[in-house]
């Protein structure tokens, strides 16, 4: 089957694939930056002691985790105009990606912080540190180290999820591959080119995760 692939057409459309690749990279980077901001805020809210600030964060995380990204995307795509907010599809896509991944980022950071042993907090308290000092000097330096690999894992998920933006007609990698299918009636060539381009991103991120964890893992802690 691979022998009958029309590689000439695939090469002909290389510029389109390359543009799609860059668009996917850019959309994912923007989405991930937004997700980090949202995730840190949601995590901070969900571990602080005030109950009425805690539950919106918990509700956000649970609502996102229990519904598919595509439904969230359509919610924004068909819903925002209803509120009089008209945004370009691309921006709606980035917002959806950020909102979605933000919930997972919040969970990752939260589990990092909760993995800190109580004794660490108690020791910091008994040496007279305030809440913010404890967070900054004792908890966060230990808590953030084991979150890096899962965060890169989430970045991988986000890159793949960004393909759904093609369904609200954002031009990115998946959409670029469909161009070959539509222009030349060659869906296979388009899909193979698209899949290969995604695999490049996947292996790059996977290498980054492996490299990081081999250099930074602490004995006895991930």
């Amino acid at each position, binding site marked *: *089957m691979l022998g009958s692939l029309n590689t000439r057409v695939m090469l002909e459309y290389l510029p389109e694939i390359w543009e799609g690749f860059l668009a996917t990279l850019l959309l994912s980077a923007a989405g991930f930056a937004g997700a980090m901001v949202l995730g840190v805020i949601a995590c901070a809210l969900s571990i602080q002691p005030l109950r009425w600030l805690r539950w919106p964060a918990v509700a956000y995380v*649970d*609502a996102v*985790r*229990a*519904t*598919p*990204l*595509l*439904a*969230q995307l*359509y*919610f924004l*795509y*068909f*819903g*925002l*105009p*209803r*509120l009089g907010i008209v945004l370009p599809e691309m921006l709606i896509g980035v917002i959806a990606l950020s909102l979605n991944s933000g919930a997972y980022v919040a969970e990752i950071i939260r589990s990092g912080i909760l993995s800190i042993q109580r004794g660490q907090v108690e020791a910091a308290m008994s040496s007279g540190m305030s809440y913010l000092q404890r967070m900054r000097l004792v908890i966060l330096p230990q808590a953030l180290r084991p979150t890096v690999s899962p965060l890169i894992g989430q970045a*991988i998920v986000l890159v*793949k*999820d*960004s*393909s*759904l933006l*093609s*369904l609200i007609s954002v031009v990115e990698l*998946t959409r670029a*591959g469909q161009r070959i*299918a539509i222009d030349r009636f060659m*869906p*296979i060539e388009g*899909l193979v080119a*698209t*899949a290969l381009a*995604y*695999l490049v*991103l*996947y*292996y790059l991120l*996977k290498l980054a995760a492996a490299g990081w964890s081999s250099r930074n893992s602490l004995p006895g802690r991930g």
Partner: protein
Amino acid sequence: MFWIHLDRVMGYWPVLLKGIGMTLALSVLSLLIGVVIGFAFGILRAGPNRALSRVVGLYIDFFRGTPFLVQVFIAYFVLPAVGIELSAFAAGVVALSNAAACFIGEIVASGIQAVPPGQSEAAAATGMSRAQALRLVVLPQAVRIITPSLVGQFVLLIKDSSVVSAIGLLDLTRSGWMIVQSVPNGLLVFAIVGIGYFIICYPLIWLSRRMEGRSQAPIL
């Protein structure tokens, strides 16, 4: 206006119900197939045959590294080109159960590797064959370690099934998409769709979290 829209959306309840049925059918069927193939993948991946382990690893990587939407299109457009004609439903099940098998395979392999090697050595010392040791000693312990992640994986599978709507299957997401064409209130329609998914997924998320808390107890 809200009540009029709500009333009109509720008029579409047969469509929503059909959508939920399709989402459940897709997810449950793919889960069953995915678990069977996934365990086979995992056992091969963690097994002693290096070459086989690498081949399975590459296969798994291919599907873990590409978006599920692309995989759905592959099942729907590429398989017919090699002589496998599939209906949209069959293509959806193939894509979903294949993706599930790849993720479950990786989970099972890591579960098997998490069982201390002393266990299979002890099994070998009591005269068990490799297959017996796997079936009676290693797998039961591995399954206990990985059950929370397997439940979590099922949630991902249910959510991924929404992507299959891209090839025209009328699942829960697609039913929302259809309703929003005639009731112009995306917030309301997709909030209802979201509630549908929440009712299916949240109990599983809760279960997975609960089990994760419990399996922290020493496993040996």
